Each structure stands twice: as structure tokens, then as C-alpha cells.
């Protein structure tokens, strides 16, 4: 039987998930950098309390980084949760409903996080 995978794959249809795969990796790097930025600033000298904690998120560059991390989380979790649903939920109707719920959940959470960020 002829090999139809790898470099010899039959190229038909749309993309093969490469875009999602790449998006998941790029967004993971953004979130890792955000995590490091928070950890470093928490470890800087000074007693932890409201003033120090809120000051971390008051810088404009930190707001931009946090916003980027929130949007990255949205895309990253969508790819991941969709993978889980495609593997474990076989009935099409249930899968579609759960995927729709996932989008609503993620967009709602991202909206809330951005709202918190904006009013600081």
C-alpha cells in the first residue's frame, strides 16, 4: 500500500491543524513570559500587600503584557479544550454544544479579565 502520510501525504482539503498547533505554542511562550514577569516583580524587595501587588499591574507595559497573555490564554485553551472534546465526546450534537459552551466560557472570562485590567 502506498504511503500517504508524512512528506508523501495526499494533499487535499484545508490545513492540517498546523495553524492551531503553532498558535498553541506561540501563545504558551507569551503566557510563560507573563508568568516570569509576575514572579520577578513579586520577588523584588518590599513587603507584599495591596500597594505592591496593585503597583505591579499599574505599569502600561505590564497592562499590555497582561492583556496579551489573556488573549493568548483564550486561543491556547480553545485549541486544548477542543482537542479534549474531539477525543472524548463522539456524538456530534453533544460535541458541538460543548464546543459552543467552551467559546462562551472563554470569551466571557477574557472579557471579565480585560475589564478588571482596564479600570486599574
Amino acid at each position: 500500500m502506498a504511503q500517504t502520510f508524512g512528506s508523501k501525504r495526499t494533499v487535499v482539503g484545508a490545513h492540517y491543524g498546523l495553524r492551531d498547533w503553532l498558535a498553541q505554542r506561540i501563545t504558551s511562550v507569551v503566557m510563560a513570559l507573563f508568568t516570569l514577569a509576575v514572579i520577578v516583580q513579586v520577588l523584588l524587595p518590599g513587603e507584599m500587600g495591596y500597594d505592591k501587588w496593585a503597583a505591579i499591574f499599574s505599569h502600561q507595559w505590564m497592562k499590555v503584557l497582561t492583556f496579551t497573555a489573556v488573549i493568548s490564554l483564550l486561543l491556547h485553551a480553545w485549541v486544548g479544550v477542543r482537542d479534549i472534546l474531539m477525543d472524548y465526546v463522539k456524538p456530534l450534537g453533544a460535541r458541538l454544544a460543548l464546543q459552543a459552551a467552551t467559546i462562551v466560557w472563554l470569551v466571557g472570562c477574557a472579557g471579565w479579565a480585560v475589564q478588571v485590567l482596564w479600570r486599574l
Partner: protein
Amino acid sequence: MADTVKQRPVYRNIHITQLPHYRLPAPGWVSILHRISGALLFILLPFTIWMFDTSVTSEVSYAQFASVFSAGSAGLPGWFFKLVVLGLIWAYVQHFIAGLRHLWMDMTHATGLAFGRQSAIVTLVATGLLTVALGAKLFF
């Protein structure tokens, strides 16, 4: 001919009832824990954003945030909320380190059996140690 076609063994995915008897190697554990930790972070997302909201909005809300973990809230004791946060910490650390392992494998094409096994053990041990250390800071 028809008989041999019928008797062909069918290999299906592992059924859920087989799971307790299934010996999973270390990379397998990292793989399934990546899913479980990711799903947990996804489900607890509103709680995480609630913590961000109350801790950062004002001094009054910061005090409310702190009191939930000491005095409790909604009839639930403070340690319960700390336990949820401990779960979040474990999931975040596990997902973070296993994610770094993923990125490393993607970039270097590090695919051998030995590397997969060793890096999986490192991931599990490092996650365990960090979770214990951060958990100690959270509770004591």
C-alpha cells in the same frame, strides 16, 4: 474467507473500566496529567479571575480577598479555598513544566525513548517539589 474476516481482532482504545489495571509509563502520566491540569485550569478560570479582580481592584476588595482565605466565605472554611488554590498551583506548575518539555521536544526533535522517560520523571518530580514548597507557603 468470510470467517477469517469476522475473526480479525479489533484493537480499540482503552476502555475506562480497564484504566485501574493499566500500567502507564512516566511519559504517559505526563501526557494525561497535561490534559487533566489544562482542563482544571480551564474550569477554575472564573475563580482565578475573581482572585485577580478582588486582589487588585482596591484596598477594600484586597481585604475581602484575604479574608476569604482566613475566615472563609459562603459557609465554606478558609482552608477549603486554600485547597482549591493548591489545586490551581499544582495544575499551573504541572502544565508549565510539561509545556516547556513539549516546546523543547518540538524545537530540538528530541524524541528517543530515554529522553522521553527521563524528562517525564524530571517533570513529575519538579512539579511535586514546587507544589509542596508553594503549598507550605500557602498554608503556614
